[in-house]
């Protein structure tokens, strides 16, 4: 525990906790509209921004925010047009993004350790200014995702209905795209571009195994994200493992624990009240999850 007396470990912990809370709050909307892996794609694009920032001697995170936002808006526009070629357009964008990033980082004569820091995260090198950026942007994401929950839920749940309700559907979609880019960029320092999606998606996937509504899923996912971030940093500090990977593995472990506990609980309940649950439900019940 004494490791947490060092300021760099405190910064790492606070940064991880902010991201652990904000990433699932955004991720739940992405999962709901079946774009769970979009964060991954935006992360690939953000890497080009990092490379450009290093090459131009500008703040890599700042340039990454700009490039990732442009990438996320492009992805949203391709998605909204609903063309069948959208799939391939996204692939071009993703691989172009990561190849461009690797190439630009190479040109900027930074060390390969520098590239690794963005690919896999580098929590312990977070400076106070980085932490302020993470905290401010993280708070903005949280406030937006919680404050606009009814509208964002409606758009992600049934976009046509939202349009007939007169909601500003395009603005809300672009807002989500920008929020994804911002979350990806601040999470980049914690878990790296290759693992960002995990923090957005895994806590949601874990939570929805036991929750019944959208609001409770959101609350549970944020709690699990917070837990994964805190325990992941602690594991990294005590066992001297990579912090980003430890955070993601803790999130996946919590998914496994929730799955086992939920299965046991269902089995126990079925034994306690035989046939109560299934008989009460009509035959065309859908319990499919994907």
């Amino acid at each position: 525990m004494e490791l947490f007396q060092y300021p760099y470990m405190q910064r790492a912990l606070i940064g991880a906790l902010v991201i652990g809370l904000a990433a699932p709050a955004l991720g739940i909307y992405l999962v709901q509209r079946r774009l769970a892996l979009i964060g991954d794609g935006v992360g690939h694009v953000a890497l080009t921004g990092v490379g450009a920032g290093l090459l131009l001697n500008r703040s890599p995170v700042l340039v990454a925010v700009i490039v990732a936002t442009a990438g996320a808006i492009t992805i949203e526009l391709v998605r909204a047009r609903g063309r069948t070629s959208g799939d391939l357009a996204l692939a071009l964008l993703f691989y172009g993004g990561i190849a461009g990033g690797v190439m630009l980082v190479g040109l900027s004569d930074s060390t390969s350790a520098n590239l690794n820091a963005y690919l896999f995260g580098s929590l312990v090198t977070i400076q106070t200014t980085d932490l302020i950026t993470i905290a401010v942007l993280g708070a903005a994401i949280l406030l937006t995702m919680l404050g606009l929950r009814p509208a964002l839920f409606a758009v992600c749940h049934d976009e046509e209905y939202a349009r007939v309700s007169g909601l500003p559907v395009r603005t809300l979609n672009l807002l989500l795209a920008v929020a994804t880019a911002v979350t990806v960029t601040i999470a980049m320092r914690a878990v790296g571009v290759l693992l960002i999606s995990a923090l957005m998606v895994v806590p949601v996937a874990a939570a929805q195994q036991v929750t019944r509504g959208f609001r409770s899923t959101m609350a549970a996912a944020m709690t699990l994200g917070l837990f994964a971030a805190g325990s992941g940093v602690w594991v990294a500090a005590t066992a001297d493992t990579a912090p980003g990977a430890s955070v993601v593995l803790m999130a996946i472990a919590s998914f496994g624990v929730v799955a086992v506990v939920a299965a046991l609980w269902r089995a126990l309940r079925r034994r306690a009240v035989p046939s109560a649950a299934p008989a009460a439900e009509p035959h065309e019940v859908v319990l499919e999850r994907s």
Partner: protein
Amino acid sequence: MTSPVITVTHGVVGYDGRPVLRDVSLSVTTGEVVALLGANGSGKSTLIRSILGLVPLSSGSVTLFDRPLRRFRQWHRIGYVPQRLGAGSGVPATVGEVVASGRLARRGVLRPAGAADRAAVDAALRAVGLADRVRDPVATLSGGQQQRTLIARALAGRPELLVLDEPTAGVDAESQEAFAGALGEFVDGGGTVLLVAHELGPLRPLISRAVVVHAGVVVHDGAVPEPAGHHAEPDHDHVHPHGPDEPAGLWSS
């Protein structure tokens, strides 16, 4: 007292150059309950989607409550009930949460839900007979109950016009009755209805006018046509490809 609610003038819609609606004109006035009838692919769903602005007209015009569609902003006056929920999702949502979406047209994006919103959601759920399911995940409801949830969502906004796309397709008898009851209450309260239907079933007594669409044109506009041929047989089981054979509920896809 009767004023135009929906007016379509010489509407034409084409997908990829293939005409789906050719020169359709239709008007619905206050208090009418109009059924759009027609076979699969006749263009009846396209017609209501173009009225709601979900499908662009390639020529002709639509007015809603005496305003051109492009300048229409009073969406709280319209309640839309889609055929099913488009993209399903893995994230659970309760019946109450889905129905609460129906209040957004009145409330706007930024204002949080208040007592009036909750009261309207409760009333809408009672109207369709699902008040006791408000906290259940929609995915655990039957297809008919899910359809009633979508109707409650539309009613929660207290609209003046309901637009329904095949509300009773693949819906069990109990839900059809509950649905007809809710629609009857809405009509008694002065509401206007435009619905697409394949078969009218228990809705039949409510319908004041029928419009039959065939191959993209209106071929009948007037009294509800009597069922003919094998459709008239009392035990005729109306099975069609996207109807009762649906393997799962509306929220899966």
